[in-house]
Protein backbone atom coordinates (compact mmCIF):
# COMPACT_ATOMS: atom_id res chain seq x y z
CA UNK A 1 0.00 0.00 0.00
CA UNK A 2 2.70 2.37 1.05
CA UNK A 3 4.78 1.41 -1.92
CA UNK A 4 1.97 2.09 -4.34
CA UNK A 5 1.46 5.53 -2.83
CA UNK A 6 5.15 6.16 -3.23
CA UNK A 7 5.10 5.13 -6.87
CA UNK A 8 2.09 7.32 -7.53
CA UNK A 9 3.84 10.23 -5.94
CA UNK A 10 6.82 9.61 -8.16
CA UNK A 11 4.64 9.50 -11.26
CA UNK A 12 2.48 12.39 -10.22
CA UNK A 13 5.29 14.75 -9.40
CA UNK A 14 6.29 17.06 -12.20
CA UNK A 15 9.38 16.39 -14.23
CA UNK A 16 11.49 18.00 -11.47
CA UNK A 17 12.53 14.68 -9.96
CA UNK A 18 13.48 13.26 -13.34
CA UNK A 19 15.54 16.30 -14.19
CA UNK A 20 17.26 16.14 -10.81
CA UNK A 21 18.11 12.52 -11.56
CA UNK A 22 19.42 13.38 -15.01
CA UNK A 23 21.56 16.18 -13.58
CA UNK A 24 22.94 13.81 -10.96
CA UNK A 25 23.73 11.19 -13.59
CA UNK A 26 25.47 13.77 -15.79
CA UNK A 27 27.59 14.95 -12.86
CA UNK A 28 28.57 11.37 -12.06
CA UNK A 29 29.49 10.57 -15.65
CA UNK A 30 31.46 13.80 -16.02
CA UNK A 31 33.57 13.19 -12.96
CA UNK A 32 34.28 9.54 -13.78
CA UNK A 33 35.27 10.42 -17.35
CA UNK A 34 37.42 13.29 -16.12
CA UNK A 35 39.19 11.08 -13.60
CA UNK A 36 39.85 8.35 -16.14
CA UNK A 37 40.97 10.86 -18.76
CA UNK A 38 43.28 12.65 -16.37
CA UNK A 39 44.65 9.31 -15.25
CA UNK A 40 45.72 8.67 -18.84
CA UNK A 41 47.17 12.17 -19.04
CA UNK A 42 49.18 11.51 -15.88
CA UNK A 43 50.41 8.25 -17.32
CA UNK A 44 51.61 10.08 -20.42
CA UNK A 45 53.21 12.84 -18.39
CA UNK A 46 54.93 10.28 -16.22
CA UNK A 47 56.43 8.46 -19.19
CA UNK A 48 57.61 11.48 -21.10
CA UNK A 49 58.49 13.44 -17.98
CA UNK A 50 60.58 10.67 -16.53
CA UNK A 51 62.31 10.29 -19.90
CA UNK A 52 63.09 13.99 -19.85
CA UNK A 53 64.44 13.81 -16.30
CA UNK A 54 66.58 10.76 -17.07
CA UNK A 55 67.77 12.12 -20.41
CA UNK A 56 65.99 9.43 -22.41
CA UNK A 57 63.61 9.82 -25.33
CA UNK A 58 60.72 7.82 -23.95
CA UNK A 59 57.72 6.46 -25.80
CA UNK A 60 57.84 7.64 -29.40
CA UNK A 61 57.27 4.66 -31.68
CA UNK A 62 53.59 3.94 -32.06
CA UNK A 63 51.93 5.54 -35.02
CA UNK A 64 48.80 4.83 -37.04
CA UNK A 65 49.81 3.66 -40.53
CA UNK A 66 52.79 6.01 -40.40
CA UNK A 67 50.35 8.87 -40.66
CA UNK A 68 52.08 11.12 -38.18
CA UNK A 69 55.43 10.59 -39.83
CA UNK A 70 54.10 11.30 -43.29
CA UNK A 71 52.56 14.52 -42.10
CA UNK A 72 55.86 15.40 -40.46
CA UNK A 73 54.43 15.67 -36.97
CA UNK A 74 56.80 15.04 -34.06
CA UNK A 75 55.79 11.94 -32.11
CA UNK A 76 55.16 12.72 -28.46
CA UNK A 77 54.18 9.18 -27.57
CA UNK A 78 50.52 10.03 -27.11
CA UNK A 79 49.39 7.15 -29.29
CA UNK A 80 51.66 4.83 -27.31
CA UNK A 81 50.03 5.77 -24.04
CA UNK A 82 46.44 6.29 -25.07
CA UNK A 83 45.97 3.56 -27.65
CA UNK A 84 48.80 1.10 -28.20
CA UNK A 85 49.61 0.16 -24.61
CA UNK A 86 46.03 -0.25 -23.40
CA UNK A 87 45.29 -2.49 -26.40
CA UNK A 88 48.41 -4.49 -25.69
CA UNK A 89 47.59 -4.86 -22.01
CA UNK A 90 43.95 -5.80 -22.42
CA UNK A 91 44.64 -8.40 -25.10
CA UNK A 92 47.34 -10.14 -23.10
CA UNK A 93 46.75 -13.50 -21.53
CA UNK A 94 45.04 -13.14 -18.18
CA UNK A 95 47.35 -15.33 -16.17
CA UNK A 96 46.39 -16.78 -12.80
CA UNK A 97 49.16 -18.66 -11.02
CA UNK A 98 48.80 -22.24 -9.90
CA UNK A 99 47.26 -22.59 -6.46
CA UNK A 100 46.05 -19.00 -6.37
CA UNK A 101 42.71 -18.02 -4.93
CA UNK A 102 41.08 -17.40 -8.30
CA UNK A 103 38.11 -15.43 -7.03
CA UNK A 104 40.08 -13.02 -4.88
CA UNK A 105 42.84 -12.79 -7.46
CA UNK A 106 40.31 -11.48 -9.93
CA UNK A 107 38.49 -9.31 -7.41
CA UNK A 108 41.52 -7.61 -5.85
CA UNK A 109 42.37 -5.07 -8.60
CA UNK A 110 38.81 -3.80 -8.65
CA UNK A 111 38.67 -3.78 -4.86
CA UNK A 112 41.69 -1.47 -5.08
CA UNK A 113 40.35 0.82 -7.81
CA UNK A 114 36.72 1.11 -6.71
CA UNK A 115 37.19 2.99 -3.39
CA UNK A 116 39.50 5.49 -5.07
CA UNK A 117 37.04 6.22 -7.86
CA UNK A 118 34.02 6.60 -5.57
CA UNK A 119 35.92 9.09 -3.41
CA UNK A 120 35.69 11.59 -6.25
CA UNK A 121 31.91 11.64 -5.77
CA UNK A 122 32.19 14.28 -3.03
CA UNK A 123 34.69 16.51 -4.80
CA UNK A 124 33.34 20.01 -5.43
CA UNK A 125 34.32 21.06 -8.95
CA UNK A 126 32.71 24.49 -8.78
CA UNK A 127 30.12 26.63 -7.07
CA UNK A 128 26.49 26.90 -8.12
CA UNK A 129 25.74 26.81 -11.84
CA UNK A 130 22.41 28.34 -12.82
CA UNK A 131 20.70 27.01 -15.92
CA UNK A 132 17.19 28.35 -16.35
CA UNK A 133 15.40 27.81 -13.04
CA UNK A 134 17.74 25.03 -11.94
CA UNK A 135 20.62 25.65 -9.60
CA UNK A 136 23.20 22.94 -10.07
CA UNK A 137 25.69 22.36 -7.31
CA UNK A 138 28.89 21.33 -9.10
CA UNK A 139 29.60 18.72 -6.45
CA UNK A 140 28.47 15.29 -7.65
CA UNK A 141 27.22 14.21 -4.22
CA UNK A 142 26.56 16.87 -1.64
CA UNK A 143 27.51 15.06 1.55
CA UNK A 144 27.79 17.06 4.75
CA UNK A 145 30.24 14.57 6.26
CA UNK A 146 32.42 14.40 3.16
CA UNK A 147 35.71 14.46 5.09
CA UNK A 148 34.66 11.32 7.00
CA UNK A 149 33.59 9.73 3.74
CA UNK A 150 37.03 10.39 2.26
CA UNK A 151 38.73 8.81 5.27
CA UNK A 152 36.42 5.79 5.07
CA UNK A 153 37.02 5.10 1.38
CA UNK A 154 40.77 5.51 1.81
CA UNK A 155 40.58 3.04 4.68
CA UNK A 156 38.84 0.44 2.52
CA UNK A 157 41.45 0.91 -0.22
CA UNK A 158 43.92 -1.23 1.73
CA UNK A 159 41.99 -4.42 1.01
CA UNK A 160 42.55 -4.63 -2.73
CA UNK A 161 46.31 -4.36 -2.37
CA UNK A 162 46.67 -6.71 0.59
CA UNK A 163 44.37 -9.36 -0.89
CA UNK A 164 45.98 -9.07 -4.31
CA UNK A 165 49.28 -9.92 -2.67
CA UNK A 166 47.85 -12.78 -0.67
CA UNK A 167 45.69 -14.37 -3.37
CA UNK A 168 48.59 -14.61 -5.84
CA UNK A 169 50.20 -17.52 -3.99
CA UNK A 170 53.59 -15.89 -4.32
CA UNK A 171 55.97 -15.01 -1.50
CA UNK A 172 57.06 -11.73 -2.98
CA UNK A 173 53.52 -10.72 -3.71
CA UNK A 174 52.47 -11.50 -0.14
CA UNK A 175 55.40 -9.56 1.30
CA UNK A 176 54.45 -6.65 -0.92
CA UNK A 177 50.84 -6.89 0.20
CA UNK A 178 51.80 -6.95 3.88
CA UNK A 179 54.17 -4.04 3.43
CA UNK A 180 51.49 -2.10 1.59
CA UNK A 181 48.87 -2.62 4.24
CA UNK A 182 51.25 -1.73 7.10
CA UNK A 183 52.38 1.37 5.27
CA UNK A 184 48.89 2.50 4.32
CA UNK A 185 47.49 2.00 7.82
CA UNK A 186 50.41 3.89 9.36
CA UNK A 187 50.14 6.85 7.04
CA UNK A 188 46.37 6.97 7.25
CA UNK A 189 46.81 8.24 10.81
CA UNK A 190 48.98 11.16 9.69
CA UNK A 191 46.55 11.82 6.87
CA UNK A 192 43.59 11.76 9.23
CA UNK A 193 45.33 14.19 11.61
CA UNK A 194 46.06 16.56 8.72
CA UNK A 195 42.45 16.44 7.54
CA UNK A 196 41.07 16.87 11.08
CA UNK A 197 43.22 19.99 11.57
CA UNK A 198 41.69 21.46 8.40
CA UNK A 199 38.20 20.45 9.55
CA UNK A 200 38.79 22.20 12.89
CA UNK A 201 40.01 25.30 11.07
CA UNK A 202 36.92 25.62 8.90
CA UNK A 203 34.46 24.16 11.36
CA UNK A 204 32.83 21.93 8.75
CA UNK A 205 33.22 18.49 7.23
CA UNK A 206 31.59 19.57 4.00
CA UNK A 207 34.14 20.01 1.21
CA UNK A 208 31.91 22.47 -0.64
CA UNK A 209 31.64 24.67 2.47
CA UNK A 210 35.41 24.53 2.87
CA UNK A 211 35.90 25.77 -0.68
CA UNK A 212 33.42 28.58 -0.10
CA UNK A 213 35.21 29.56 3.10
CA UNK A 214 38.39 30.00 1.08
CA UNK A 215 36.87 32.74 -1.07
CA UNK A 216 37.65 36.39 -0.55
CA UNK A 217 40.92 38.07 0.33
CA UNK A 218 43.13 39.09 3.24
CA UNK A 219 44.72 42.55 3.37
CA UNK A 220 42.87 43.43 0.20
CA UNK A 221 44.90 41.23 -2.13
CA UNK A 222 45.92 37.88 -0.63
CA UNK A 223 43.53 35.02 -1.52
CA UNK A 224 42.19 33.29 1.58
CA UNK A 225 43.62 29.91 0.70
CA UNK A 226 43.98 27.22 3.31
CA UNK A 227 47.70 26.76 2.84
CA UNK A 228 48.27 30.10 4.58
CA UNK A 229 46.28 28.88 7.59
CA UNK A 230 47.51 25.31 7.70
CA UNK A 231 50.97 25.00 6.11
CA UNK A 232 51.93 22.08 8.37
CA UNK A 233 48.80 20.19 7.44
CA UNK A 234 49.59 20.73 3.80
CA UNK A 235 53.01 19.11 4.18
CA UNK A 236 51.55 16.26 6.22
CA UNK A 237 48.84 15.58 3.67
CA UNK A 238 51.27 15.75 0.76
CA UNK A 239 53.73 13.32 2.35
CA UNK A 240 51.17 10.90 3.73
CA UNK A 241 49.18 11.10 0.51
CA UNK A 242 52.22 10.12 -1.49
CA UNK A 243 52.79 7.26 0.92
CA UNK A 244 49.17 6.19 0.45
CA UNK A 245 49.63 6.08 -3.30
CA UNK A 246 52.63 3.77 -2.79
CA UNK A 247 54.99 5.48 -5.22
CA UNK A 248 58.64 6.39 -4.93
CA UNK A 249 59.96 7.37 -2.38
CA UNK A 250 57.38 5.20 -0.61
CA UNK A 251 57.16 2.34 -3.11
CA UNK A 252 58.37 -0.42 -0.79
CA UNK A 253 55.29 -2.54 -1.53
CA UNK A 254 56.50 -2.74 -5.13
CA UNK A 255 60.23 -2.53 -4.47
CA UNK A 256 61.38 -3.91 -7.83
CA UNK A 257 64.91 -4.59 -6.61
CA UNK A 258 63.71 -6.66 -3.65
CA UNK A 259 60.24 -8.03 -4.40
CA UNK A 260 60.12 -8.41 -8.20
CA UNK A 261 57.04 -6.21 -8.45
CA UNK A 262 55.53 -6.56 -5.00
CA UNK A 263 51.82 -7.16 -4.67
CA UNK A 264 51.16 -7.29 -8.40
CA UNK A 265 53.98 -9.66 -9.29
CA UNK A 266 51.52 -12.29 -10.46
CA UNK A 267 49.23 -9.94 -12.33
CA UNK A 268 49.29 -9.46 -16.05
CA UNK A 269 47.23 -7.86 -18.76
CA UNK A 270 44.03 -6.09 -17.86
CA UNK A 271 44.16 -6.73 -14.11
CA UNK A 272 47.63 -5.25 -13.88
CA UNK A 273 46.43 -2.27 -15.89
CA UNK A 274 43.70 -1.78 -13.27
CA UNK A 275 46.33 -1.78 -10.51
CA UNK A 276 48.33 0.79 -12.47
CA UNK A 277 45.24 2.92 -12.92
CA UNK A 278 44.65 2.74 -9.17
CA UNK A 279 48.11 4.21 -8.63
CA UNK A 280 47.44 7.16 -10.88
CA UNK A 281 43.91 7.65 -9.62
CA UNK A 282 45.37 7.86 -6.11
CA UNK A 283 47.86 10.49 -7.26
CA UNK A 284 44.93 12.41 -8.67
CA UNK A 285 42.93 11.92 -5.48
CA UNK A 286 45.74 13.31 -3.33
CA UNK A 287 46.03 16.28 -5.68
CA UNK A 288 42.26 16.84 -5.47
CA UNK A 289 42.24 16.68 -1.67
CA UNK A 290 45.18 19.09 -1.41
CA UNK A 291 43.49 21.45 -3.85
CA UNK A 292 40.24 21.40 -1.91
CA UNK A 293 41.83 21.77 1.52
CA UNK A 294 44.72 24.13 0.83
CA UNK A 295 44.45 25.80 -2.57
CA UNK A 296 40.94 27.09 -2.50
CA UNK A 297 39.34 24.24 -4.44
CA UNK A 298 37.54 25.92 -7.33
CA UNK A 299 38.30 29.45 -6.11
CA UNK A 300 39.99 31.71 -8.63
CA UNK A 301 41.82 34.64 -7.00
CA UNK A 302 39.61 37.73 -6.87
CA UNK A 303 36.77 35.99 -8.69
CA UNK A 304 33.43 36.28 -6.91
CA UNK A 305 29.97 35.10 -7.85
CA UNK A 306 29.36 38.13 -10.02
CA UNK A 307 32.80 38.42 -11.60
CA UNK A 308 36.30 39.68 -10.86
CA UNK A 309 36.97 42.33 -8.23
CA UNK A 310 40.64 43.14 -8.49
CA UNK A 311 42.63 44.51 -5.51
CA UNK A 312 42.94 47.98 -7.04
CA UNK A 313 39.18 48.35 -7.02
CA UNK A 314 38.69 47.53 -10.67
CA UNK A 315 35.92 45.09 -11.43
CA UNK A 316 35.02 42.90 -14.39
CA UNK A 317 31.54 41.50 -14.07
CA UNK A 318 30.83 38.15 -15.64
CA UNK A 319 27.69 36.06 -16.18
CA UNK A 320 27.13 33.05 -13.93
CA UNK A 321 27.98 30.58 -16.69
CA UNK A 322 31.39 32.15 -17.31
CA UNK A 323 32.14 32.16 -13.57
CA UNK A 324 31.20 28.49 -13.27
CA UNK A 325 33.37 27.54 -16.24
CA UNK A 326 36.30 29.53 -14.87
CA UNK A 327 35.95 27.80 -11.49
CA UNK A 328 35.71 24.37 -13.09
CA UNK A 329 38.79 24.94 -15.26
CA UNK A 330 40.75 26.51 -12.38
CA UNK A 331 40.02 23.52 -10.17
CA UNK A 332 41.29 20.97 -12.64
CA UNK A 333 44.33 23.09 -13.56
CA UNK A 334 45.29 23.15 -9.88
CA UNK A 335 44.77 19.40 -9.68
CA UNK A 336 46.94 18.77 -12.73
CA UNK A 337 49.73 20.99 -11.38
CA UNK A 338 49.72 19.17 -8.04
CA UNK A 339 49.68 15.76 -9.76
CA UNK A 340 52.67 16.79 -11.86
CA UNK A 341 54.40 17.95 -8.68
CA UNK A 342 53.92 14.46 -7.24
CA UNK A 343 55.31 12.87 -10.39
CA UNK A 344 58.34 15.17 -10.26
CA UNK A 345 58.93 14.17 -6.63
CA UNK A 346 58.62 10.55 -7.63
CA UNK A 347 61.34 10.82 -10.23
CA UNK A 348 63.61 12.91 -8.01
CA UNK A 349 63.85 11.11 -4.68
CA UNK A 350 65.33 7.67 -3.95
CA UNK A 351 63.36 4.97 -2.15
CA UNK A 352 63.31 4.92 1.65
CA UNK A 353 64.32 1.91 3.70
CA UNK A 354 61.48 0.19 5.53
CA UNK A 355 62.62 1.28 8.99
CA UNK A 356 63.04 4.84 7.71
CA UNK A 357 59.53 4.70 6.34
CA UNK A 358 58.06 3.58 9.66
CA UNK A 359 60.16 6.06 11.63
CA UNK A 360 59.04 8.92 9.40
CA UNK A 361 55.42 7.90 9.77
CA UNK A 362 55.20 7.16 13.48
CA UNK A 363 57.91 9.35 14.97
CA UNK A 364 57.79 12.20 12.50
CA UNK A 365 54.41 12.77 10.95
CA UNK A 366 52.08 11.53 13.71
CA UNK A 367 53.57 13.67 16.53
CA UNK A 368 53.79 16.62 14.16
CA UNK A 369 50.17 16.13 13.19
CA UNK A 370 49.10 15.91 16.85
CA UNK A 371 51.00 19.09 17.74
CA UNK A 372 49.51 20.85 14.76
CA UNK A 373 46.03 19.71 15.75
CA UNK A 374 46.43 20.90 19.35
CA UNK A 375 47.85 24.24 18.20
CA UNK A 376 45.00 24.64 15.70
CA UNK A 377 42.42 23.85 18.36
CA UNK A 378 43.93 26.45 20.72
CA UNK A 379 43.98 29.10 18.02
CA UNK A 380 40.42 28.35 16.95
CA UNK A 381 39.13 28.55 20.52
CA UNK A 382 41.16 31.70 21.22
CA UNK A 383 39.78 33.28 18.06
CA UNK A 384 36.29 32.51 19.31
CA UNK A 385 35.44 29.85 16.75
CA UNK A 386 32.56 27.45 17.10
Amino acid at each position, binding site marked *: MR*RRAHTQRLLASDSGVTIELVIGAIKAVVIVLLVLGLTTLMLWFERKGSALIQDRIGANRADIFGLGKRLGMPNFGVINTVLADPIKMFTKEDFV*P*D*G*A*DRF*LHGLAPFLALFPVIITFAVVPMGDILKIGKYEIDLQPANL*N*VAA*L*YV*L*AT*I*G*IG*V*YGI*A*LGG*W*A*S*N*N*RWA*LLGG*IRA*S*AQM*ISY*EIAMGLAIIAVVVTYGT*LDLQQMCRAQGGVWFGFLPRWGILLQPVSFLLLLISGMAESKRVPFDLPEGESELVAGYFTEYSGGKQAVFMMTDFAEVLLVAVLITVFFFGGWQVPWLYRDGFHFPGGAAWLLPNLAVAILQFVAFWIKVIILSCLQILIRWTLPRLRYDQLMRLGWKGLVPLGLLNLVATAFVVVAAGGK
Partner: protein
Amino acid sequence: MPQWLFAFLAALAIIGALGTILQRNLVHCVLGFALVLIDLGVLYMGLGAVTVGFLQIIVYVGAIMVLFLFVIWLLNIQADTGVRGGASLSLKLVGALAAAALAAELFVVFSHAPKLREVRTIAPAFGSVATLAHVLFSRYLIAFETTSLLLLAAIVGAVALARRLAGQSAEVAAMPSQPGSAARESRREVA
Protein backbone atom coordinates in the same frame (compact mmCIF):
# COMPACT_ATOMS: atom_id res chain seq x y z
CA MET B 1 15.44 3.47 4.26
CA PRO B 2 13.10 1.90 1.70
CA GLN B 3 12.03 -1.66 2.38
CA TRP B 4 13.74 -3.17 -0.67
CA LEU B 5 17.07 -1.61 0.26
CA PHE B 6 16.76 -2.92 3.80
CA ALA B 7 15.93 -6.40 2.50
CA PHE B 8 18.99 -6.34 0.27
CA LEU B 9 21.30 -5.14 3.03
CA ALA B 10 19.88 -7.61 5.53
CA ALA B 11 20.38 -10.50 3.11
CA LEU B 12 23.94 -9.36 2.49
CA ALA B 13 24.62 -9.13 6.23
CA ILE B 14 23.30 -12.63 6.84
CA ILE B 15 25.32 -14.06 3.95
CA GLY B 16 28.44 -12.35 5.29
CA ALA B 17 27.77 -13.57 8.83
CA LEU B 18 27.26 -17.16 7.67
CA GLY B 19 30.44 -16.86 5.61
CA THR B 20 32.30 -15.69 8.69
CA ILE B 21 31.47 -18.74 10.74
CA LEU B 22 31.28 -21.42 8.05
CA GLN B 23 34.26 -20.92 5.76
CA ARG B 24 37.42 -22.92 6.16
CA ASN B 25 39.93 -20.35 5.01
CA LEU B 26 40.52 -17.76 7.71
CA VAL B 27 41.11 -14.96 5.21
CA HIS B 28 37.68 -15.66 3.74
CA CYS B 29 36.19 -15.59 7.23
CA VAL B 30 37.69 -12.15 7.84
CA LEU B 31 36.41 -10.91 4.48
CA GLY B 32 32.93 -12.20 5.26
CA PHE B 33 33.01 -10.28 8.51
CA ALA B 34 34.31 -7.14 6.77
CA LEU B 35 31.26 -7.42 4.48
CA VAL B 36 28.98 -7.56 7.52
CA LEU B 37 30.69 -4.51 9.03
CA ILE B 38 30.40 -2.34 5.91
CA ASP B 39 26.80 -3.47 5.57
CA LEU B 40 26.02 -2.52 9.17
CA GLY B 41 27.73 0.83 8.61
CA VAL B 42 25.31 1.51 5.75
CA LEU B 43 22.38 0.38 7.92
CA TYR B 44 23.44 2.84 10.65
CA MET B 45 23.49 5.60 8.06
CA GLY B 46 20.02 4.56 6.97
CA LEU B 47 18.91 4.85 10.60
CA GLY B 48 20.21 8.42 10.74
CA ALA B 49 23.41 7.58 12.61
CA VAL B 50 25.61 8.89 9.82
CA THR B 51 28.65 9.64 11.94
CA VAL B 52 28.62 6.30 13.68
CA GLY B 53 28.19 4.56 10.33
CA PHE B 54 31.29 6.19 8.88
CA LEU B 55 33.25 5.61 12.10
CA GLN B 56 32.27 1.97 11.89
CA ILE B 57 33.79 1.71 8.43
CA ILE B 58 36.91 3.72 9.30
CA VAL B 59 37.66 1.99 12.61
CA TYR B 60 36.34 -1.53 12.13
CA VAL B 61 36.89 -2.19 8.45
CA GLY B 62 39.85 0.11 7.87
CA ALA B 63 41.84 -0.81 10.97
CA ILE B 64 40.65 -3.72 13.11
CA MET B 65 39.96 -6.15 10.26
CA VAL B 66 43.30 -5.37 8.64
CA LEU B 67 44.88 -6.22 11.98
CA PHE B 68 43.15 -9.61 11.85
CA LEU B 69 44.50 -10.23 8.34
CA PHE B 70 47.95 -9.28 9.57
CA VAL B 71 47.87 -11.77 12.41
CA ILE B 72 46.59 -14.56 10.18
CA TRP B 73 49.44 -13.99 7.74
CA LEU B 74 51.97 -13.53 10.51
CA LEU B 75 51.09 -16.81 12.20
CA ASN B 76 51.11 -18.92 9.04
CA ILE B 77 47.75 -20.44 9.86
CA GLN B 78 46.63 -22.93 7.24
CA ALA B 79 43.04 -23.38 6.19
CA ASP B 80 41.46 -25.32 9.01
CA THR B 81 38.82 -27.99 8.99
CA GLY B 82 35.98 -25.54 9.23
CA VAL B 83 32.89 -26.74 10.98
CA ARG B 84 33.98 -30.36 10.79
CA GLY B 85 36.33 -31.56 13.50
CA GLY B 86 36.84 -29.91 16.84
CA ALA B 87 33.99 -30.16 19.26
CA SER B 88 31.77 -33.21 19.20
CA LEU B 89 28.77 -33.28 16.92
CA SER B 90 26.28 -33.41 19.76
CA LEU B 91 27.72 -30.26 21.32
CA LYS B 92 27.45 -28.49 17.99
CA LEU B 93 23.88 -29.62 17.50
CA VAL B 94 22.91 -28.50 20.98
CA GLY B 95 24.70 -25.21 20.41
CA ALA B 96 22.97 -24.59 17.10
CA LEU B 97 19.59 -25.47 18.58
CA ALA B 98 20.16 -23.22 21.57
CA ALA B 99 21.16 -20.33 19.33
CA ALA B 100 18.11 -20.93 17.13
CA ALA B 101 15.94 -20.96 20.25
CA LEU B 102 17.55 -17.71 21.35
CA ALA B 103 16.79 -16.09 18.02
CA ALA B 104 13.21 -17.40 18.09
CA GLU B 105 12.73 -16.10 21.62
CA LEU B 106 14.03 -12.67 20.61
CA PHE B 107 11.65 -12.66 17.64
CA VAL B 108 8.72 -13.44 19.91
CA VAL B 109 9.74 -10.75 22.39
CA PHE B 110 10.10 -8.14 19.67
CA SER B 111 6.84 -9.08 18.02
CA HIS B 112 5.05 -8.34 21.30
CA ALA B 113 6.46 -4.83 21.44
CA PRO B 114 3.94 -2.81 19.42
CA LYS B 115 5.98 0.38 19.69
CA LEU B 116 8.65 -1.19 17.51
CA ARG B 117 6.27 -1.17 14.57
CA GLU B 118 5.67 2.56 14.60
CA VAL B 119 7.66 4.65 12.20
CA ARG B 120 8.96 7.88 13.62
CA THR B 121 10.55 10.72 11.77
CA ILE B 122 13.62 12.33 13.23
CA ALA B 123 15.20 15.75 13.12
CA PRO B 124 17.72 16.14 10.29
CA ALA B 125 20.52 16.97 12.75
CA PHE B 126 20.01 13.63 14.53
CA GLY B 127 23.22 11.63 14.29
CA SER B 128 25.27 14.42 12.77
CA VAL B 129 28.84 14.98 13.89
CA ALA B 130 27.88 18.07 15.87
CA THR B 131 25.06 16.33 17.75
CA LEU B 132 27.16 13.29 18.58
CA ALA B 133 30.08 15.45 19.67
CA HIS B 134 27.82 17.55 21.85
CA VAL B 135 26.54 14.51 23.72
CA LEU B 136 30.01 12.93 23.92
CA PHE B 137 31.67 16.02 25.33
CA SER B 138 28.97 16.95 27.80
CA ARG B 139 27.13 14.05 29.40
CA TYR B 140 29.67 11.37 28.54
CA LEU B 141 32.83 13.42 28.98
CA ILE B 142 34.29 11.31 31.80
CA ALA B 143 33.60 8.08 29.94
CA PHE B 144 35.13 9.55 26.80
CA GLU B 145 38.30 10.56 28.60
CA THR B 146 38.51 7.19 30.32
CA THR B 147 38.38 5.57 26.89
CA SER B 148 41.68 7.20 25.99
CA LEU B 149 43.17 5.59 29.08
CA LEU B 150 41.75 2.25 28.01
CA LEU B 151 43.28 2.59 24.57
CA LEU B 152 46.67 3.50 26.04
CA ALA B 153 46.51 0.47 28.32
CA ALA B 154 45.55 -1.71 25.35
CA ILE B 155 48.49 -0.46 23.29
CA VAL B 156 50.95 -1.12 26.12
CA GLY B 157 49.37 -4.49 26.80
CA ALA B 158 49.47 -5.55 23.17
CA VAL B 159 53.12 -4.61 22.82
CA ALA B 160 54.04 -6.37 26.04
CA LEU B 161 52.18 -9.55 25.07
CA ALA B 162 53.36 -9.81 21.49
CA ARG B 163 56.96 -8.86 22.20
CA ARG B 164 59.44 -11.60 21.39
CA LEU B 165 61.45 -12.30 24.52
CA ALA B 166 65.19 -12.83 24.21
CA GLY B 167 65.88 -16.49 23.53
CA GLN B 168 62.53 -17.27 21.98
CA SER B 169 62.93 -18.84 18.59
CA ALA B 170 62.15 -16.76 15.55
CA GLU B 171 61.35 -19.76 13.41
CA VAL B 172 57.71 -20.08 14.28
CA ALA B 173 55.86 -18.08 11.67
CA ALA B 174 58.67 -18.21 9.17
CA MET B 175 56.44 -17.41 6.22
CA PRO B 176 52.76 -16.70 6.10
CA SER B 177 50.38 -19.11 4.49
CA GLN B 178 48.79 -18.59 1.13
CA PRO B 179 46.07 -20.33 -0.82
CA GLY B 180 48.30 -22.91 -2.47
CA SER B 181 50.91 -23.37 0.19
CA ALA B 182 49.02 -26.34 1.58
CA ALA B 183 49.69 -28.17 -1.66
CA ARG B 184 53.41 -27.44 -1.54
CA GLU B 185 54.14 -28.11 2.06
CA SER B 186 53.28 -30.87 4.40
CA ARG B 187 49.92 -29.87 5.59
CA ARG B 188 49.58 -28.65 9.11
CA GLU B 189 45.99 -28.90 10.01
CA VAL B 190 44.58 -26.69 12.67
CA ALA B 191 41.44 -28.36 13.76
